[in-house]
């Protein structure tokens, strides 16, 4: 293990320990926030599909939201692992960490999805900029 990796591990453990030993009122608030985030993601995907009249049973959205929030948390751990002592992140290392979470076929699909979305956002931002 290199010095950089050891420091990254230390930051992960610190992050875990702090959350574990949070004061009870902060802990309760964290649970409320977490549950609200899952519920919000679930309701949004359900609403999106309802708008185009192609909704699934509620349980499918609940599972999708749980997976999404859990993946976000797992990526956060990767970010801590890839962070320097000054809190900066090595994006190359972070991307490697994210890629290692997934099977290669799915990672490519995920990247395609993100690329399409970011392209659409750029187009939307440009369009809004032109309108001003």
């Amino acid at each position, binding site marked *: 293990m290199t010095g950089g990796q050891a420091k990254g591990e230390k930051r992960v453990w610190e992050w875990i320990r702090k959350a574990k030993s949070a004061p009870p009122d902060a802990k309760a608030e964290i649970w409320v926030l977490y549950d609200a985030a899952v519920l919000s993601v679930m309701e949004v995907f359900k609403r999106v599909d309802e*708008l185009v009249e192609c909704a699934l*049973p509620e349980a*499918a959205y609940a599972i999708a939201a749980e997976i999404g*929030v859990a993946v976000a948390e797992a990526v*956060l751990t990767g970010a801590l692992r890839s962070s320097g002592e000054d809190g900066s992140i090595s994006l190359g290392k972070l991307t490697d960490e994210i890629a290692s979470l997934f099977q290669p076929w799915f990672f490519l699909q995920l990247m395609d999805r993100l690329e399409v979305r970011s392209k659409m956002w750029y187009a939307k931002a440009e369009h809004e900029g032109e309108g001003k």
Partner: protein
Amino acid sequence: MSAGRSNGSQKPQNEKEKGAVATESERFREWIEKPQNPPPELKSKLWELYDGAELGLKETLKRMDELVGHALDDDIYAIVAEIGMAAAEATLPFAHRFSREDGSVEMSRFLEKVADMFSSWAFEALAIRLKLWALMQLAERLGVVGP
């Protein structure tokens, strides 16, 4: 898929299977096509909803870490939320693929497919915070650690 299975006794079953696959594909295509071609006013609403959820997830994770005095850069939470939302969205096509004509979802096939998305170690590690806290509560109950 093995060849030479088209004997008379298996034909009805194969046709039934083909019919089920066609139905799944149809439902899947329909789901993809519908959001691609909604009326313009609906499309902007879809974007607003999606952006709202992503911002909510980003701010929530950031707030959770701030509460324990361990927040990272803002950009990191944006990346994390983006990946999380994309992963959630990417599981839905599988739900559609394994949905039946009555709209119900074949959960075991759906969950198998979700598990396939991840490296096996990562699938085990999902819901990291939840698992750690559950372990901590168990440890407290057992008196291994305590406040």
